[in-house]
């Protein structure tokens, strides 16, 4: 083995200051637990997308209905079932009309592109199946003896123009002529309200119930958990339905029904956490130092059980939102004219054949919201337990 000789000064002791080896004691830096959780959560893209969506939804739910010129209950039967987008027909240069081929009505198109008024026909020929309007001295005839109906202007078949936005009602109107956009935002309010109620019930009832059971333990715990077991045997949906039968429909009843039933999972999670934590040394230490039970519960145990509680909460929110819309869909939830995504969907089902687009907005709204909460929940769970992340 030949190699150049080693210079004598190389055999001198290594000075840590001039060396590039670094301090061995602090070679691996450790971050705080929550800092790590936050970092991992922020890097979880679906979770962040979900969070942004939820924040936007909350803003829309709070401020949207205030800024809309319409209310969720204001009906206008003349302007019912209007589409969000349409293809206008040109009658004269400054007069455009929209034809609803399902109810065979003509609507006036405003300068801004909104569908603003129903045009009543000047003549209805039921036998030959055609309606006639006189607009700006031109004769507009809608012949519905065949499908699809044909519009003629001064005897010539008219062609529909390019796709236009309905500026008056960007999401269109429902079968009672109510603005779909404002009703959607109102639906978001209801969903979030129900979510908030479920969260509150979970926190107050679930955490205390589970905490007390886990902390006292023994016979009390056994009895309390037996009760939870009995409640948990039957699906929550069934309980909520039964509660609704007793309480009669309405938003308050939905909130009450969900609130009284949706704490069971949380109680189990908290109890499990407490039992695990209770066996740990620092709780024994607190006890030896004379800390009271409630102090142990709130100062020591719950902060440590916070992670699993948070994950359970984010999992429960979508299920509470779902159950409200489910109840409203089968007619046991909020009462008309209040709008929930469930009632909006079931109303859309009634008009599904003629106006399938009405299904689009509530279906997308509830699906995206559920997706957003699920993504946030998944991200949170992965962030809290890095071992599980894939």
């Amino acid at each position, binding site marked *: 083995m030949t190699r150049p000789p*080693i210079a004598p000064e*190389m*055999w001198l002791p290594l000075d840590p200051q001039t060396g590039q080896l670094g301090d061995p*004691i602090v070679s*691996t830096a450790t971050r705080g637990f929550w800092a790590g959780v936050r970092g991992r959560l922020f890097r979880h893209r679906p979770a962040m997308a979900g969070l942004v969506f939820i924040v936007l939804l909350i803003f829309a739910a709070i401020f949207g209905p205030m800024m809309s010129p319409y209310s969720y209950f204001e009906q206008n039967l003349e302007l019912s079932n209007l589409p969000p987008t349409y293809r206008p027909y040109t009658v004269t240069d400054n007069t455009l009309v929209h034809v609803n081929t399902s109810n065979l009505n003509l609507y006036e198109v405003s300068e801004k592109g909104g569908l603003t008024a129903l045009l009543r026909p000047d003549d209805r020929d039921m036998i030959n199946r055609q309606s006639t309007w006189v607009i700006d001295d031109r004769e507009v005839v809608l012949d519905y003896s065949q499908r699809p109906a044909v519009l003629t202007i001064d005897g010539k078949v008219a062609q529909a123009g390019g796709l236009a936005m309905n500026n008056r009602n960007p999401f269109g109107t429902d079968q009672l002529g109510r603005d779909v956009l404002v009703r959607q935002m109102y639906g978001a309010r209801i969903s979030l309200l129900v979510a908030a109620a479920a969260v509150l019930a979970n926190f107050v009832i679930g955490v205390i119930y589970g905490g007390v059971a886990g902390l006292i333990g023994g016979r009390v715990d056994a009895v309390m958990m037996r009760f939870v077991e009995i409640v948990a045997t039957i699906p929550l949906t069934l309980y909520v339905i039964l509660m609704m039968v007793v309480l009669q429909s309405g938003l308050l009843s939905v909130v009450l029904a969900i609130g009284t039933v949706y704490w069971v999972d949380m109680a189990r999670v908290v109890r499990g956490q407490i039992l695990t934590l209770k066996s740990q040394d620092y709780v024994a230490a607190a006890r030896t130092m004379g800390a009271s039970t409630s102090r142990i519960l709130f100062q020591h145990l719950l902060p440590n059980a916070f992670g699993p509680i948070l994950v359970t909460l984010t999992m429960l929110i979508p299920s509470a939102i779902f159950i409200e819309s489910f109840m409203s869909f089968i007619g046991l939830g909020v009462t008309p004219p209040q709008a929930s995504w469930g009632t909006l969907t079931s109303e859309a089902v009634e008009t599904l054949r003629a106006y399938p687009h009405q299904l689009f907005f509530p279906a997308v709204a509830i699906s995206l919201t559920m997706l957003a909460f699920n993504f946030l929940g998944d991200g949170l769970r992965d962030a809290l337990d890095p071992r599980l992340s894939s």
Partner: protein
Amino acid sequence: MTAPVLSLRDLRTEYRTDRGTVQAVRGIDLTLQRGEILGLVGESGSGKSVTCMSILKLLKRGGHITSGVAEFDGRDLLQLSERQLTAVRGEKIGVVFQDPMSALNPTMTVGRQIVEVLLQHRKISRKAARDRAVELFELVRIPSARTRIDSYPHEFSGGMRQRVMIAIALACDPDILIADEPTTALDVTIQRQILALLKELRDRLGMAIILVTHDLGVIAETADRVMVLYGGQVMEEALVADLFAAPCHPYTRGLLAAIPDPRQAGRPLSPVRGSPPDMRTPPPGCPFAPRCPQAMRICETPPPMFDATGNPALQAGQRARCWRADATAPAQIFETPS
């Protein structure tokens, strides 16, 4: 000396993780003689387990071997396909893992778990395999073997489970047994029994054993020869007696000083200061230099492996990766007491 049963040259293994590539093994050479017990010792993260598992390419997700040769039976194991390797694993080379709690399939009777290996590698009937399994149970001294064979792992104690693992590893009379921290999860008395069993089985069956451990006590009791690993490299290699009598590397000396000595009760232990290097960015020179009480400027240059031919202070067969063993080093440096 006859030809070694296994010889490993310049093995390098990396693990890709979310937070960077960990250089777990950085050029390890290893020769294993027939029938010898070779101890691999080091702290966690030193690369001792990864070295063993690389031989059979049994790496966890993200791990891959970047270079090296593992000559066994006239072939390079590292060049074999996954399919070809199945003929070596369990048949020529058996493995015993650290934690017998989790290394056995909890939903399968231990008998099936042994019979499974036999049926895989031997052309024998299920009945014959079962008889052989009972024999193996008796070999590893599991009482009432014939009935215990239909039990599930959770119905055994930790020590018994490890005996089951050894029985599985020995089922096909392997040439080599890799025992990866086989006693770490067990309590001390059980540990001694298992080590004694391993030694006895080596004497009876003549296979070579690679014994991975972090415990020099286990090495002293069981191994013939020992390699001290640190930072993915071999720091020192010697016959067990030589290593304990005349350790060369400051790391080895540090490890030895950290062993409690009952004859000097009351004397405080002197643990090795600091923690192992981050193997995503290993130190540029000697990996131990940042913690070494005798680090020199030269230590920022990677030291080569020195052996007795260059340094008469080293015993025959002893090798050390430390500049202090360099023939040109000033004499007083080597003599510096630790």
